[in-house]
């Protein structure tokens, strides 16, 4: 087995396990255990890859290539750059936590549920490692299918409207991306992302950007977001905002910007403006939101804007910051949604009006929510601070006012996050918070503590990622 096969294993192991779960009549316990085991094995394989990764080289590593549609020069080509490695790590760790959460709360129809979660894991990894446009597109779309069912079957009362909105929005973007990638691939004669040359077509660039702007989302394409995040089960919302939405940002970073440098710089101001709008508008919405999930959802929207600001700043600092911030925010968002889920399990609601005083007698939930919240509002010394600082420094190199807008939004972040923490943990005891409601149980701690621990490690050593992002988009472009 070559090292490249490790990447393929990372993609296909969970999908194969999904088939096993669907076909074999296992008990609920066995199904959940198997799913969790496979997701932990994914983490293990990823650690193995990270340990073997040679950060001094700039090219593609763990690459594997095979024929798929030779006729049109489409190949099965997977591999990892340094930045892809971090995204894959984010994906497998967060999905392991989400699957564990599903196991812990005991979702009904467990075989269908865990099969879909595993399928989602495989598709997510596939998006981050695919080095062929059509393969990327296939995985990008494949993420949608399990999410649609996971929200539609296990979601909240208004789930049907939320799913249809989510699917139609995302597919609208993706299908235009399909048209764009056909145009690009047939024009340059290959669909390969590594070999493919740059292209100057603005239409093709906009086709890709539409898909990524909806997925991430950027203003004004966020219409699907509040419903989907509110109606999804907490662990699915965590996967959606922590990992899946990051695929849109990854697409900008890997495809839209490096493959279309001229259109990207032509439209730079437009996308910087959309990103800044997402950042400010999302922060304000988060501040106005009456529920915990709403705060996390809109803060994800705002963070997408911030990260896009870094990506479109077109500077090395902005790029490194964006990679770091994607990973950091992925963990923050996953942890916050899972915490929100634990709060909902204890109180049946996440409305601030009905919550309050959760901290009294429940030190674990208070500590974890407080720590994650503090990291998320980017206090100096935290991972998010490092990411945001780099992004703002990058944006500053472009023009000072972008950085000014970003800095202003960080103040807003402090406002909405502290408001949310205080509304849940402190203040007078809410009407739904019973004295009997327990603190976090061992199972829940085992899921959330590792996520927070990763965040603390990143806070202590952000350069672990930001100093190891490998080639920038410009060098990705010229890499062989």
């Amino acid at each position: 087995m070559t090292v490249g096969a490790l990447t393929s294993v990372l993609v296909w192991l969970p999908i194969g396990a999904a088939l096993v779960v669907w076909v074999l009549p296992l008990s609920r316990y066995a199904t959940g255990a198997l799913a969790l085991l496979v997701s932990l094995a994914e983490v293990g394989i990823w650690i193995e890859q990270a340990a073997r990764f040679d950060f001094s080289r700039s090219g593609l590593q763990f690459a594997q290539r095979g024929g798929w549609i030779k006729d049109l020069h489409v190949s099965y080509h997977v591999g990892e750059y340094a930045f892809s490695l971090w995204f894959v790590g984010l994906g497998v760790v967060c999905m392991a936590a989400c699957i564990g959460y599903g196991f812990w709360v005991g979702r009904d129809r467990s075989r269908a549920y865990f099969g879909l979660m595993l399928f989602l894991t495989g598709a997510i990894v596939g998006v981050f490692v695919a080095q062929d446009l059509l393969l990327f597109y296939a995985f990008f779309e494949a993420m949608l299918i399990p999410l649609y069912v996971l929200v539609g079957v296990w979601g909240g009362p208004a789930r049907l409207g939320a799913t249809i909105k989510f699917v139609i929005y995302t597919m609208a973007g993706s299908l235009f991306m399909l048209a764009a990638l056909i145009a690009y691939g047939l024009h340059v004669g290959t669909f390969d992302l590594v070999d493919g040359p740059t292209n100057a077509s603005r239409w093709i660039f906009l086709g890709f950007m539409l898909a990524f702007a909806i997925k991430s989302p950027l203003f004004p394409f966020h219409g699907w977001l509040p419903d989907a995040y509110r109606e999804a089960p907490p662990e699915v919302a965590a996967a959606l905002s922590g990992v899946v939405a990051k695929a849109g940002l990854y697409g900008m970073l890997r495809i839209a910007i490096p493959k279309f440098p001229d259109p990207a710089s032509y439209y730079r101001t437009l996308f910087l403006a959309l990103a800044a709008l997402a950042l400010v508008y999302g922060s304000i919405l988060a501040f106005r939101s009456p529920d915990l999930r709403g705060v996390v959802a809109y803060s994800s929207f705002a963070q997408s804007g911030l990260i896009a600001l870094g990506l479109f700043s077109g500077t090395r600092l902005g790029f490194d910051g964006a990679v770091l911030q994607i990973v950091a925010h992925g963990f923050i968002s996953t942890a916050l949604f899972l915490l929100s889920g634990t709060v909902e399990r204890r109180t049946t609601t996440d409305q601030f009006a009905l919550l309050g005083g959760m901290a009294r007698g429940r030190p674990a939930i208070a500590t974890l929510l407080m720590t994650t919240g503090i990291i998320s509002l980017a206090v100096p010394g935290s991972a998010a601070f490092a990411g945001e600082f780099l992004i703002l420094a990058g944006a500053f190199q472009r023009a000072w006012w972008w950085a000014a807008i970003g800095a202003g939004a960080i103040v807003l972040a402090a406002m909405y996050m502290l408001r949310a923490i205080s509304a849940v943990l402190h203040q007078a005891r809410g009407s739904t918070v019973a004295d009997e409601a327990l603190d976090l149980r061992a199972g829940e701690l085992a899921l959330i503590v590792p996520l927070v621990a990763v965040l603390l490690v990143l806070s202590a050593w952000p350069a672990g990622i930001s100093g190891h992002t490998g080639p920038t988009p410009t060098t990705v472009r010229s890499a062989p």
Partner: protein
Amino acid sequence: MIQTPHVDWFAISTILVLLGASFVALLGAVLVPRPARRPFAAGVSALGFVGGIVTSVWLYVDSANGHLVIANAFARDRWTMLAQVVICGTGLAATLVGAEQIARPRDDHIAEFFSLLLACAAGMVFFVGAANLMVMFLSLEWFSIALYVMCAIDYDVEGPLEAGLKYLVVGSFGSAALLFGSALVYGATNHIDFAGIRANGSSNDLLLVLGLAMIIAGLGFKSSSAPFHMWTPDVYEGAPTTVTAFMSAATKVAAFVLAFRILRTAFPQDEHLWSWAFAGIAVASLAIGNLAALVQRNVKRMLAYSSISHAGFLLIGLSAGSSLGGRALMYYLIVYSAMAFGSFAVVAARERELGVPVTLDNLAGFGWERPFLGVAMWFFLFGFAGLPLGGGFVAKFYVFSAAYDHGWAWLVIVGVVATLVSLYYYLAVVRAMYMRPSEELRVAAVTGGSPPREPLLHVAVGLALAVSVGSLFAVGPLIDLAKHAASALPF
């Protein structure tokens, strides 16, 4: 003394096998005692289709250098043979489903049904190889008449009878258009063979262009493309679901394969005309099929409109007219026939279970009750919508590529928008099967015990599922097959 042409019997062996089986099945209707008639006829039919697949595959391998046989009336080439394999495969699946689903109180006409099915498929496999206008018309009538009768096989039930009659009337209109067009083309060129028409036709000849237009209209009826689609929803809804499944898959294959052949071999000089004509029909089919499907509650009717919209996607490949378009068309047809057949077969199972037409409402909970059929349906619907759960995704990619390659980016955009619209009604079925709240599920619960076991239907659906999912992974080999097939046509 009339000189008889040399007959290459092997070239038409698939037709002969199917006709022979049809004959045996018909004999069974008379000679085999009533209780054994169903297994006998179904067995003969299955053997006939397996035999047809074997001979077609053999001929595919053996016909690397495509040529015309039997006084230049029949094309023995890989384009014909690959289409024959698909049609025979669909026929085999229809046999499996029909053996359980064609329910008659006393099995009165069960053997006749299989006899007709075989004869119909024989007509289709003849049709796809037609190399002159006469063979084209005769074989079209041949399989159409068989289809009319199959639609009305339950002649004492109102729905199927109405469907058969409607199909007969509208189908005859289509055939008449085709025949009249053929006559005009003959008048313009003095030739009925495709090669002769190409050699003698000129694109400035109004008579020829008019003839071409009428031939396109005639084929449009068979392929249920808008604006020649009016019969489709009614007939698909009224016909026994097994027949609908067969018709939706096999007729489309036959019509599109022949359309591409006649356009490439007889009318290449008019490509600037027909590619635009087909692009127009494609847009109309996509628009009408998708918009009308949005409001349907009856699942068969919805799938009928979806089949019109897929005719639109296929026409995108057809209108590109290139070798890439041919490959795209053939690949799309293989995947589409599997998905269309499979989805109707699943509907057939639910219909039998409930005893009433399947609607989005009484489909509620079906996915949880019958997991295999539910998951299969899921795959078919997502495949229709072009999501990467099967070859439907690559098929769309291919036809869009063909259109883009032809320089028609606008047609790609039309296709993309149509796909987006189609998502809504495909997802409505998935939503009905899996996501209704439990109180609704109880309302829709089946009365009268557990559903019938239906092993053969499961096998047929499994085959369709295997083709539709396998074609995503085996794109390379399938495209190679289609490429060799398309290389038999002049470009």
